[in-house]
């Protein structure tokens, strides 16, 4: 299992559309993928699971990936956060 903690930088945080993009991306990997936010740990492949975090801008979130493609999964998920889910210019 590998993990990385990053800061949420997009203004709206993990809102519905960002969470949908994130869960869609997570579902494209075989690895188990979890998000840890303020002590809560949810399956990143579940849209509603991600939404329960109510994760907002400026806060740290940890991405955990575990499985065959864990490195690629972690990279791409970190990237989608860093690209602010392509919703800000």
């Amino acid at each position: 299992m590998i993990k990385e903690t990053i800061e949420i930088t997009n203004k709206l945080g993990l809102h519905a559309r960002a969470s949908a993009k994130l869960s869609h991306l997570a579902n494209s990997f075989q690895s188990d993928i979890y998000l840890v936010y303020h002590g809560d740990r949810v399956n990143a492949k579940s849209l509603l699971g991600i939404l329960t975090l109510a994760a907002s801008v400026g806060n740290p979130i940890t991405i955990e990936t575990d499985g065959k493609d864990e490195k690629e999964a972690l990279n791409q998920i970190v990237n989608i956060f860093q690209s602010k889910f392509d919703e800000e210019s």
Partner: protein
Amino acid sequence: MIKAFIITHGNLGKELVEVARSILETPIDIECISFDWREDGTKTLNKIQHNLKKYEDDDIIIFTDMFGGSPTNICFQFDRKNIEILTGINLPGLLKFLTYKDKKINLKALVKEVKKGAIDGINVIGEYLGEKKS
């Protein structure tokens, strides 16, 4: 294949589907049927029957807006082995359905998951924050 319908008062179903489509950024194949409260239900009933006939061999899930409301009441007669009817559909429930429907689970298990998603999506923020603080 699981075919879904939303039967609601007015345009509630259409709006829910439109919002879900915007969130998921994907086309959504759900038939929306509006119950017009100016009629006695015959028109809506005919529409439902006509649509269900097209999908006789499929598993079907019918979402309605409120238990006890006309859109739900006229659906009681359709409850059978390959049809599940879930009342009180909301956005979390609909999103749960749309993100779970392609997983290999049967209709009964799917409708249970959707119901759970819909209920879990209802929160009192003060209680939620209270739990977080304690």
